[in-house]
């Protein structure tokens, strides 16, 4: 039962990623794409944590933390860059 629920959760997360990528492709403006990337990162953190559970490796939680940190930096940097304008 519990495993099945986890599998459904995995499918839902997969579709979340698909939607995020769709927004990344459609874009419209650069900011929209960055928003999509930001959201994809948060989804990935959840996914990494889930993978840490599935493979039973505690170390991967550190990976999630580093990933969150780096994506936060990236979004700030891009926002700063776009703010300055062309």
């Amino acid at each position, binding site marked *: *039962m*519990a*495993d099945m*629920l*986890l599998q*459904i*959760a*995995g499918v*839902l*997360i997969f*579709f*979340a*990623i*698909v*939607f*995020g990528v*769709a*927004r990344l492709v459609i874009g*419209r*403006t650069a*900011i*929209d794409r*960055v*928003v*999509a990337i*930001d*959201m994809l990162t*948060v*989804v990935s*953190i*959840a996914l990494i*944590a*889930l993978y*840490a*559970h599935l493979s039973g490796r*505690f170390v991967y*939680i550190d990976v*999630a*933390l580093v990933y*969150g*940190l780096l*994506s*936060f930096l990236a*979004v*700030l940097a891009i*926002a*700063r860059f*776009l*703010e300055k*304008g062309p």
Partner: protein
Amino acid sequence: MELTGSILVLTGAFFLFSAGLGLLRMPDTFTRIQAGTKASTLGNILVLAGLGFYHPDWALKLLVVAYFVLMTNPLSSHALSRAAHAIRTPMAPSTMVDALREEGDRQGNGDVS
């Protein structure tokens, strides 16, 4: 125990899914930022909490990750929306009022400290 955890994970995944859908469906950049930030933050926290039920010994570290997301995600969305407003990203036609634009125009849009 495991069932509680998996239900939490599933709820979180559902919120992440809604975040993706909101990102796709919302009419303009700012509303997309809102949908993306809120739903994905809660979804992420729920997934981490659910995993905490599976592994009680991981709980504290998962809490650190959740706290980190809780702190950085709104900040990055704030930085993004600020940048979007600064470069005059178009807003949805149904937008009613833009106090920041009025204020910025009154200040000569220099915005220098």
